[in-house]
C-alpha cells in the first residue's frame, strides 16, 4: 500500500484544531467541509440510570479522534447509539449531513458507519477470507439464483470478491491466514480482522472499540501505524475508544473525555494531558500515564 502519506512520528501529526459551532474541535484541513458526524445532545437512560447525557461532538471527514474515560463511563454505549444498537432517549446525530432518526443498525451501516466490538464478534466458523467477504456483501453483484445455479455472473462476482478480500487483508499482512477459521486466530489477529471486516463495508466513519486491548506493545505500535495508514488510504474518519494512552495520545488529533456519561473535557492530546479535571477523574487513577 501507499506509505507516502503516512505520519511516521507523533511530531508530524497536524494537531491544528479549529472550533466547530462552539462545541467541537475539528482538524484544520477538514473545517471547510461539513463534518461527517455531527452529534447533538445525544443521551440514553437505562431505567433510572443515565448512561450518556448531553453528548455533543463533531467529527471531521478525515479526522482520527479518541474517546476516553474510566470504566463504565459510557463510551461503548455511545458506539451503540451511533450504530443504533440502542435508540437514543434524547438527541440525534447527522451522518454526512443527513438525520439518522429512525434508522436501524443495518441502515446505519449502509449509510456509512462501521464498527468493531469491545468483545470481539467475528463469524467464528467462517474463514478469515469469508469474514471479509461477508463485509463485502453489498459490493458483490449477483442474485440469489445466479449463486444457486453458478452462472458466469456468480463466477465473476466471486473472483472480484476474492481479490478484493485479499487486498483488504494485506492491510494487516493477513493474506496468509485467509483460509484459517476466524475463531482459531490469536486475540490480536481477531481484532485486526474485525477492523478489516468493518472496512470492507466501505464506511465513511470507522468506530474502533478498544482496538489494542489484549495486544502486546509491538502489536500496538504496529496497529497505531496501520490506523493512520487506513485513514490516509481510504480518507475516512476514525473514532476510537482506547485505554492505552500511548495509542490515544500518539495518533488522535482531538480527544473527548467522558465521565459518568458526561463529557468533561475536549482538546488536543497535550491539552487533555494537562487538564486538571481529566487528571482528577481519569488519568490520575491510571498506571499508564
Amino acid at each position, binding site marked *: 500500500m501507499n506509505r507516502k502519506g503516512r505520519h511516521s512520528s507523533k511530531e508530524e501529526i497536524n494537531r491544528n484544531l479549529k472550533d466547530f459551532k462552539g462545541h467541537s474541535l475539528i482538524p484544520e484541513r477538514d473545517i471547510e467541509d461539513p463534518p461527517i458526524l455531527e452529534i447533538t445532545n445525544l443521551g440514553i437512560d437505562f431505567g433510572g440510570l443515565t448512561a450518556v447525557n448531553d453528548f455533543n461532538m463533531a467529527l471531521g471527514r478525515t479526522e482520527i479522534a479518541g474517546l476516553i474515560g474510566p470504566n463504565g463511563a459510557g463510551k461503548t454505549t455511545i458506539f451503540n447509539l451511533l450504530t443504533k*444498537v440502542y435508540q437514543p432517549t434524547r438527541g440525534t446525530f447527522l451522518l454526512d449531513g443527513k438525520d439518522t432518526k429512525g434508522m436501524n443498525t*443495518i441502515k446505519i451501516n449502509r449509510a456509512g458507519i462501521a464498527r468493531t466490538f469491545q468483545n470481539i*464478534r467475528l463469524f467464528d*466458523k467462517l*474463514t478469515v477470507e469469508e469474514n471479509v467477504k*461477508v463485509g463485502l*456483501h453489498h459490493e458483490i453483484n449477483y442474485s440469489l439464483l445466479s*449463486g444457486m445455479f453458478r452462472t458466469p455472473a456468480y463466477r465473476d462476482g*466471486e473472483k472480484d470478491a476474492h481479490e478484493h478480500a485479499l487486498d483488504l487483508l494485506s492491510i494487516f499482512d493477513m493474506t496468509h491466514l485467509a483460509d484459517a477459521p476466524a475463531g482459531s486466530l490469536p486475540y490480536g489477529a481477531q481484532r485486526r480482522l474485525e477492523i478489516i471486516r*468493518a472496512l470492507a463495508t466501505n464506511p465513511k466513519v470507522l468506530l474502533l472499540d478498544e482496538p489494542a486491548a489484549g495486544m502486546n506493545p509491538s502489536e500496538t505500535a504496529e496497529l497505531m501505524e496501520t490506523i493512520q495508514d487506513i485513514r490516509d488510504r481510504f480518507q475516512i474518519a476514525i473514532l476510537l475508544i482506547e485505554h492505552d494512552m500511548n495509542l490515544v495520545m500518539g495518533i488522535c488529533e482531538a480527544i473527548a473525555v467522558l465521565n459518568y456519561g458526561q463529557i468533561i473535557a475536549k482538546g488536543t492530546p497535550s491539552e487533555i494531558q494537562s487538564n486538571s479535571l481529566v487528571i482528577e477523574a481519569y488519568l490520575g487513577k491510571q498506571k499508564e500515564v
Partner: protein
Amino acid sequence: MKKNLKNKLKNMTSYRKKSVLAYSIVILAFIIITIFDTLGFVTNSLYGQLVPICVYISLAVSLNLVVGISGELSLGHAGFMSIGAFAGVIASTVLQESVVVAMPRLFIAILVGGIIAGIAGVLIGIPVLRLRGDYLAIVTLAFGEIIRNVLNCIYIGMDEAGLRIATSAEKLGLDPINGKMILNGPMGATGIQKLATFTSGFILVLFTLFIVQNLINSKQGRAIMATRDNRIAAESIGLNVTNFKLTAFVTSAALAGMAGALFALNYSTVAPVKFNFNTSILILVFVVLGGMGNIVGSIISAAILTILPEALREFSDYRMLIYAIVLILVMLATNNLTFRAFIDKYIGKITRFLRPKKRNPDFPQKEEV
C-alpha cells in the same frame, strides 16, 4: 493431467472440497447400486428402499440448511414434505391425460410440490423469522401438526366438472362413474400412479445437493452463516438478518416439498399420518447425527439409518433395540476426539462443524455488546 487435478483440488476452498466429496459419494453409490442391480445382487427389500433413501437424503440435506447452516431449529420438515406430497399427487393425477409420458409428468409434479411447499415456507417464515430464540421450533412443530390435521379432513376429487374440494366424501358429490377420488381425508391419497424411479430419486438428490451447496458457496450463503455465528455483528455490517434466515428456510421448504412429491409418487396410497411429528424428528436425527452443517454427514446418516431398520428385520423383536444401540454408538463415535481426528485426516475436514468452538481461555467473552 493428474497433477492438474491435484492442483485444482488443492486450490479449492474447504466448502468446495466438501461439495465435490458429496457429489462423488452420491454418484459412486448410484453407479454401484445400478451395477449390482443389473447383476441381480440387489434384494427385493433393498430395491423397495431405494426411492425412500433418496427422499430421506434430500430431506436431511435440506433440513441441514435450516438447522446447521442457518442455525434455526425447525421441527416441521415433515409438514413441508406432506404439502409437496399431496400437491404432487394432485398435479400428477390432473395431468394424467394431458401429459401421458411418465418422466415429464413426474418432473412437473415434483416442481409443483416444491413451489407449493415453498409458498407455505414464505407464509410461515415471514412472521416467525423476525422473532429470536425458540419461536421457530415451536411454530414449525405446530405447523406440522396443523397441516396433518387439516389434510385429515380434506377431500379432493376430479370428474368432468373439474377438481372438487370438500370437507367430507359426501359433500364432494363426485360423479360415481367417471369421478376419481384423489385425496380421501384420513385415508390420504389413493390409487396413485407410481411414477418414482431410483434414477429420478438420484437426480433429486443431485439437484438438492446442487442447490444447497451452491447456496452455501454464494454470498447469500455466507451471509446466512454469518447471521448464525453472530447476529449483532451481521447487522453491524449491513446484513438484513431476517431476509437471509428466510432465504434458507424457504429454500429448505421447497426442497422438502419436492422430496415429498417424489415420496408420494412411489406408493399407490399415502396417508397424512405418514407425515407426523415422528417423521420430522427422524429427519432431524439424520441431521444431528451427520453433524450440524455437514452435508456429507447428512447424506451418510440418512442413507444408513433408512436402511438399518429394514436390514435389522431378521432380529424381529430386538430390531428397535439394536437400532437404538447403533444410534448411541454413532453418537459416541462422532464425539470421540481420536475417531474424529482419524476421519479428519482421511476424508478432509468433514467434522469441522462437529467440534466444540475453540476459545481462548485467557479471554472469556462477555455476552454484552
